[in-house]
């Protein structure tokens, strides 16, 4: 958040329409994403009620549990869901690329594509995480046996939820967060959590403006919640009687159909919103770094998919080394993601210019051939003076890079009183003592420099799990799923 976003929100109020926060799309959008709209039973941790899912707007599949307290029905639901999710996983691998072998000579491959899942909101991710947690430890033989696909689903859902935590990953995205990355509305972030209201501001239906569309979206009758929590009035007045009828019915199917119908009616509006949102996002041009980030997602998918059969279900909690390593990875991903979005999008960079971590302006002086001859060997160190009105917060000596071409690095030498910044360029100009043509900005050129992404650090070293030090409790017992895990109640 910054005054820039706040200003966009004010403009949204004034115009009655959402205002752009991005000029490009900062996420990958698969050609055929798997849209999932889950519902859960109120009062339960992860009792699935229904899910509407599919990869095409016109072709939703509804899975429902007519009596959510019945364990067998839940596992049947999980098996049905597993079938569809695993199909999506297998269908989204694309062509396998052969990569140059790793340093140790090991063969490396990368799948040409990866399966993307879209859910309405953060709570949807939380539900998938819980569903994954409640199914991944299940055994497929012996007592409490479930369909072999159920624990596989659990592991995949857990993997997706973990991947979602990673800044910039697009394997599992929430629609509200993705839209909010690109548009500012005239309501608060809490209200933006309602997908219908958020879309109402971004793309109001014919004849309505943002506020009117959002107001309509807050009526749970006209616009059922996007889940996974259901509307209490729906529960009490519609769903409960339908489930009670199912319990009485003894299986002639009509009561089950009735439960499915009322759930479908709750889910369909959100399903439609999800696809409308996909359309809006698709209309934005893709940011330059999106492809690279998706490649990281594909790498992660390739690795998890190709080692799946050798692996165990993910542990309940991260042991010490994994926790530290993961935090480190996430922080690195966050830094890279923040920098890439700014480099890709002048509107995002404007936020950093306002906060003083970047500055833009016109080059007023340029000495591209300047050499620093104070050392043993001369070094190419062009000087550049940039006139800027931006509220700079960087100090003399700060390392910066060029927003348009981040390889071009430099440092701030002097900050003039009248808003001129003198830069010494230090890298990214080629190996010779004269810069490569066109690399050093010329007088009159508009440029933007920033400290973002300059201090990016390499991957850190961590001990192996078996070397977990005494300060952290020593090596953890190796995790092996137990019968107890498999027998865990799901009530």
């Amino acid at each position, binding site marked *: 958040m910054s005054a820039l976003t706040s200003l966009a929100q004010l403009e949204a109020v004034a115009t009655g329409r959402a205002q752009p926060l991005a000029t490009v799309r900062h996420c990958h959008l698969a050609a055929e994403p798997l849209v999932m709209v889950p519902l859960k039973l109120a009062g339960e941790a992860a009792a699935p009620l229904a899910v509407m899912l599919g990869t095409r707007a016109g072709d939703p599949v509804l899975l429902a549990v007519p009596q959510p307290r019945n364990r067998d029905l839940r596992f049947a639901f999980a098996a049905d869901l597993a079938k569809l999710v695993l199909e999506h996983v297998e269908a989204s691998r694309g062509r396998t690329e052969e990569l140059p072998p790793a340093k140790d000579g090991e063969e490396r491959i990368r799948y040409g594509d990866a399966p993307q899942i879209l859910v309405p909101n953060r709570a949807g991710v939380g539900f998938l995480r819980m569903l994954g947690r409640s199914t991944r430890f299940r055994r497929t033989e012996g007592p409490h046996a479930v369909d072999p696909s159920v624990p596989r689903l659990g592991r995949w859902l857990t993997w997706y939820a973990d991947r979602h*935590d990673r*800044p910039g990953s697009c394997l599992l995205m929430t629609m509200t967060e993705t839209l909010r990355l690109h548009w500012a509305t005239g309501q608060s972030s809490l209200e933006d959590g309602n997908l219908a209201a958020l879309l109402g501001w971004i793309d109001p239906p014919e004849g309505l403006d943002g506020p009117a569309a959002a107001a309509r979206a807050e009526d749970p009758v006209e616009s059922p919640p996007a889940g996974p929590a259901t509307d209490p009035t729906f529960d009490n007045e519609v769903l409960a009687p339908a489930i009670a009828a199912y319990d009485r019915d003894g299986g002639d199917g009509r009561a089950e159909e009735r439960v499915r119908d009322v759930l479908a009616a709750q889910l369909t509006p959100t399903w439609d919103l999800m696809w409308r949102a996909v359309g809006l996002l698709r209309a934005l041009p893709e940011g330059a770094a999106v492809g690279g980030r998706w490649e990281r997602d594909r790498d992660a998918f390739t690795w998890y998919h190709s080692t799946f059969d050798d692996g165990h279900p993910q542990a309940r*909690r*991260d*042991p*010490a*080394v994994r*926790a*530290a390593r993961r*935090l*480190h990875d*996430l*922080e690195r*991903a*966050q*830094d890279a993601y923040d920098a890439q979005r700014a480099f890709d999008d002048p509107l995002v960079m404007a936020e950093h210019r306002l*906060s*003083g971590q970047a500055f833009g302006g016109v080059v007023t002086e340029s000495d591209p051939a300047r050499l620093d001859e104070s050392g043993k060997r001369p070094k190419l160190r062009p000087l550049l003076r940039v006139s800027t009105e931006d*509220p700079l*917060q960087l100090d003399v000596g700060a390392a910066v890079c060029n927003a348009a071409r981040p390889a071009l690095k430099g440092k701030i030498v002097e900050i003039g009183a009248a808003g001129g910044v003198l830069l010494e360029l230090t890298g990214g100009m080629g190996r010779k003592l004269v810069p490569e043509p066109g690399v050093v900005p010329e007088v009159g050129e508009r440029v933007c420099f920033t400290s973002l992404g300059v201090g990016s650090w390499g991957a*850190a*070293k*961590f*001990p192996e799990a078996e*070397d*977990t*030090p*005494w*300060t*952290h*409790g*020593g090596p953890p017992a190796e995790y092996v799923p137990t019968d107890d895990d498999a027998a865990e109640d799901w009530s």
Partner: protein
Amino acid sequence: MIDTGAAPGPDTGPGAAADAVVGAVLADLSRGHRGVVVDSPPGAGKSTLVVRAAAHLAAAGERLMIVAQTNEQVDDLIERIAGKHPDVSIGRLSASTYLPAARVTAHASVRVATKADDLADRTVVIATAAKWATLTDGTWPWAIVDEAYQMRSDMLLRIAGRFERALFVGDPGQLDPFSTVEVERWAGLTWDPMRSAVSVLLAHNPDLPVHRLPVSWRLPASAAPVVSDAFYPFTRFRSGTGPGDRRLEYAAGGMGTTYDRALDEAASSGWALYELPARHALRTDGQAIQATAALAVRLLQRGGVAHSEQGSAPVGADRIAVGAAHRDQVTAIRAALGEHGASITVDTANRLQGREYDVTVVLHPLSGRRDATAFHLESGRLCVLASRHRHACVVVARAGIPELLDAHPSTDPVHLGVPVKFPDGWEANQSMLAHLARHRVRAHD
């Protein structure tokens, strides 16, 4: 946890009380504990303890590594150890980009290298935690980890393989480690990477001895009880000097302006609250920035002289610091200081940690705010800002902070298994304000 920090009786002098704790710490180093923890309130002689412990271990023939958090802290420690114990051979392990400071190279006993192998013969090897984390082999029988509460436990995880036993020293009242990403996933785990190194260490080794340095040699008698009550309510400390032992005087008399009255109040009582009229403002509130800078410049102009147990010395620009919560405030204050105050230190709480001045001028983190956030309420932030001074602290704030605190909603999420943090920032702020209110000078009276 064995709490060995019981305060000696009131009849014990501060010097004796502090010596008793240091003696107990050194004794514990040879008792076979894997770790020893020393909590040090602001200015309680933490660095002195590190120097003594290093010399003690070296004298016992142990090789040891010292872990500090920043290059500046590394150089500070080298300067002190090499100055006090020139016979101890010291290695400074550093990144290739590090340029050795003059105060390091001035000592013949110090060798600087980028590879640990080049320092194998050194009794003491010292580096930042980040540098230690790049090593994958080699072990030292002992480590001293300085500023251990500022270090995240994931950093400790990366370096703990390098030592067999360790002395952990730090100030539990300072700023907590933070992250730019969501960390809820690990809440409640004893090895949560976001917890401080000490917290994780003690969670897994609850029987380690924990000592507390009982005396602040920095904070004057006017400040130690105030800071202790607000930020260390369960681990109180006292000042090493008595009420009359320190005096702040000005060569030039005041002219009766509100700035002068605030400075006079600070000189006579050790504290002043310079209060601007209530108003909601941006962080870079021009009036507040202006007042903060003007107070610092005026202090310099009036030629302060600090009388203390160390003798009398002028309060020059190098003995004055200005503290604020945000970087943009720091930039604005620097600009407002102009050339008169150009050499006065201005920094954020994060960067002022561990530093000491005669007089500080602090822009209150909650000044002019409409709502408090967790960032602004964090007790460590105010604690750092209010505990850097040897003589006096002038706080600049807009009126209305008590109302803001009263109106603050208490809806913080609670995670199971996470120890409650004391003091609560909200309580600590209330406590500090209650005290400052007694030293108020209104800007427009």
